Structure formats: C-alpha cells, structure tokens
C-alpha cells in the first residue's frame, strides 16, 4: 500500500509544472539561458532590476539628437521574443548599500559587480519564494567577467545570495556541480551547456540555432558604474560633500552635461545641447542656475555654495559656452535658491583660463 502511495506521489510530482525565474538583462546570454530552460518544458518568467545606473534609455531620452533613435527597452523586447512575463523591480534605494559598502570591493571603476550579482540573485530568490517559483536561472558564463563570473566567484554568488543549489546557469552548468533542478530531474543536465571564457562564438552559434538574429550588444556595458568618467564624477561628488551618499537626482545629473569644478565647494553642470538643457530645467528650483540672456547658450546648474566671486566666475564659464564666447561681454542671468534673478555682465572665460583640471 505504501509503495502504491509512493508511486502515486511520484507520478503526481512528475506532472508538477516547475517554474524558474530568470534574471533578464536584455542581453544575449540571459535570452539564451531562458530559451534553453523553456525547451525543457519549464515555465519561465523574467525579472529585471533597475538600479538607477542603467545606461540604456536615459541618455537617449535626454539628448535631443538621440530622440529619433529606437528607444526599445531590451529587457522588455527580449521577454516579448521569448514569450515570457517580465517583472521590473525598482531597487534604487536598496542598491545604495551595495554600491557604498561592497563586501567584495570594486572592479576597475566603481562597479561592485560581485556584490551586485549576489544582491540581485538574493532579490530574485525572495521573489521566487513569494511567487512559488522553484529555481533561479541566469545567463552567467564561467570566465566571462573578471569579477562576478569566475570559476571561484560563481559559488560565492550561489552561497551568499542564499540561493545555493537553486541557482542554475544553463549556459555553463556542465562546468559546475549539478544543481537542485538537475538532480531532481526537473531539467536534463545533458541538454545544458559548458560555455566558458570570453569568447562569444558559442553564444552566437546557439542564437543562430534558436533563430535569434536580432539581439542587443552582448556582455556588459549596461551599467554606468563600469564607466571610468562616470565613476570619476561619482567619487568627486562624494569627496566634495565629505560623505559617501547619493540621491536619485545625483546619479541622474551625473549622466548629463559637462561637469566643471572650479573650486572644491561647488561645481557647474553645463547643458551641452537642447535636450540636456530641457532636462536640467527640471532642477531649476533646487539649484542655483545661470543662463546667458544676451546670447544663446546653455542652462547651467551650480551644485554647492557660491560666494559673489564664485558666481562671477560661474557666469564667465556660462558665457564661455554660449554663442557669445568670443564677444567682449555677455549678460548672464543668475537665479538663486530663493527664486530671485539678477543679471551679471561678464567677459567670457578664455580657453586659457578654463583649467583642464576643472573638467570632471
């Protein structure tokens, strides 16, 4: 009798629709990982995390010259190609601790890649548990990234995220110990892959096999924190404020305009074109701002505190980036935080006076 019940239970279990949640970045690897698991009859849904540092979309949305470009969100596009639901999660606030206090340190710039991956897998695990999903998949490949996708760090992600053996990397699973879905027979390990290293050829061959001809530029580059110039501006922000913290507005503004710091206690954010000027307009009420009125020119935000002397220099820099940069005098309107505006008539700063080290 017990045997019969056991066989009935096994039969029942074999019919359970297993479910996996996939970290979907919008790149090729996670797209392939999802399809590999779908092919094995697993129900897959995608999860995509928004940290605020995502490159895609923002600069296109801000810059006027880019506004005609295709602005598709690649994570959504990938989900649609795969026929899966996608859940986009705002982790901007929680991500601060990842960036400010990375246990495993930073990569070449301010990118805390290993802590970031651990955090995202942990969040995916929480989501999976809340929604009755059995395991987590990612598009990670052993040896592909210098920090988070190494043979020695991939187990760290599984362990420290709490996912343990519920984390399956379909593209390189054969290079790693069998995970729970493989051991339980939910997925067939023989139909998983053994990709490794930085080469993209196996992924491209698999993409061709699945009939994927259109996919986003693969392998990274989606996060501003891997960008040297952005990281430099972020570190400058912390140094100037004397504390390592940021708000959403800060990280957005670091993506926009020319950043010029003539003195430790203030910097200028100079719009480079109409789209950026329009974007900076939204911050006029919370920053001292300048704009030339005798000539066409940029909107300039002043971040910090400024003396009268500083305001004159800021006005001269503003004039320097106006159409009147070769004129003898440019009239610049300065508006302080109390909303009061006044005009300063200044000589545009000459190229020699604008010190290279002021540029962030």
């Amino acid at each position: 009798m017990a045997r019969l019940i056991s066989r009935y239970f096994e039969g029942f279990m074999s019919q359970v629709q297993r479910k996996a949640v996939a970290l979907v970045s919008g790149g090729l690897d996670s797209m392939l990982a999802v399809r590999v698991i779908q092919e094995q009859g697993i129900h897959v849904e995608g999860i995509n995390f928004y940290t605020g540092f995502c490159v895609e979309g923002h600069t296109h949305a801000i810059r006027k010259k880019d506004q005609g470009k295709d602005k598709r969100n690649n994570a959504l596009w990938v989900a649609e190609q795969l026929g899966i639901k996608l859940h986009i999660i705002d982790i901007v606030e929680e991500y601060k601790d990842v960036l400010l206090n990375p246990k495993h340190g930073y990569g070449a710039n301010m990118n805390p890649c290993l802590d970031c991956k651990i955090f995202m897998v942990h969040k995916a695990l929480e989501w999976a548990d809340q929604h009755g999903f059995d395991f987590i998949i990612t598009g990670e490949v052993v040896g592909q990234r210098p920090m988070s996708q190494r043979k020695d760090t991939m187990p760290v992600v599984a362990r420290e995220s709490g996912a343990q053996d519920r984390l399956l990397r379909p593209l390189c699973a054969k290079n790693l110990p069998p995970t729970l879905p493989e051991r339980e027979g939910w997925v067939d390990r023989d139909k998983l892959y053994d990709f490794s290293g930085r080469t993209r050829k196996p992924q491209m061959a698999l993409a061709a096999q699945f009939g994927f001809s259109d996919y986003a530029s693969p392998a990274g580059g989606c996060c501003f924190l891997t960008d040297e110039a952005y990281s430099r501006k972020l570190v400058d922000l912390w140094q100037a404020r004397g504390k390592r913290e940021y708000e959403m507005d800060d990280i957005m503004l670091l993506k926009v305009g020319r950043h010029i710091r003539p003195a430790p206690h203030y910097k200028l954010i100079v719009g480079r074109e109409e789209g950026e000027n329009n974007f900076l307009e939204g911050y006029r009420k919370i920053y001292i701002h300048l704009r030339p009125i005798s000539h066409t020119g940029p909107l300039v935000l002043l971040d910090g505190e400024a003396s009268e002397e500083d305001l004159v220099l800021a006005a001269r820099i503003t004039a320097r980036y106006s159409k009147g940069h070769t004129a003898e005098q440019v009239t610049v309107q300065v508006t302080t935080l109390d909303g009061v505006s006044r005009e300063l008539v200044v000589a545009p700063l000459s190229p020699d006076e604008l010190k290279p080290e002021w540029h962030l």
Partner: protein
Amino acid sequence: MARHQLDARRLLCPMPVIRTQNRVAELQAGDVLEVTCTDPGALNDIPAWCRINGHKVLGSRREGNEVIIEVEVGDGA
C-alpha cells in the same frame, strides 16, 4: 470598470513602466489606467510591457511634450 490616472512625468524609462506595473497590480481586470509621461520612450516600453503581461493599450497620444497612454488591465492570465 473604473478609470484611474498615473502621473509619470519627469521620470525616465524604465520608471514609468515600473510605476505602471505597480499601479496595475492594485487594479481590477477591466479597469483603465491613463498614464501621463514626458519620456517618449514610454510610447514603446509601456505597450511592450502590456503585451507581455496580458494588458491592453486602448490608445496613446502626444500632447505637447507629454505622452498619454491608456491601459486596460487584463485578467492576469
């Protein structure tokens, strides 16, 4: 069926999608949510999000610098 409004102005994608997603989760099937955005990328992203998650875009229009998208909440299937 009820009509609802969502102000997603001055947010850059994907925030308008995230706000739409979170608001839709609180609504009933058949309800209509009118989302107002200033990032024109929302014209691509919100309909894409609706298609993959079983909701329907009833229409979208531009009014000056704003885009307005009407979403009918699906049954979650």
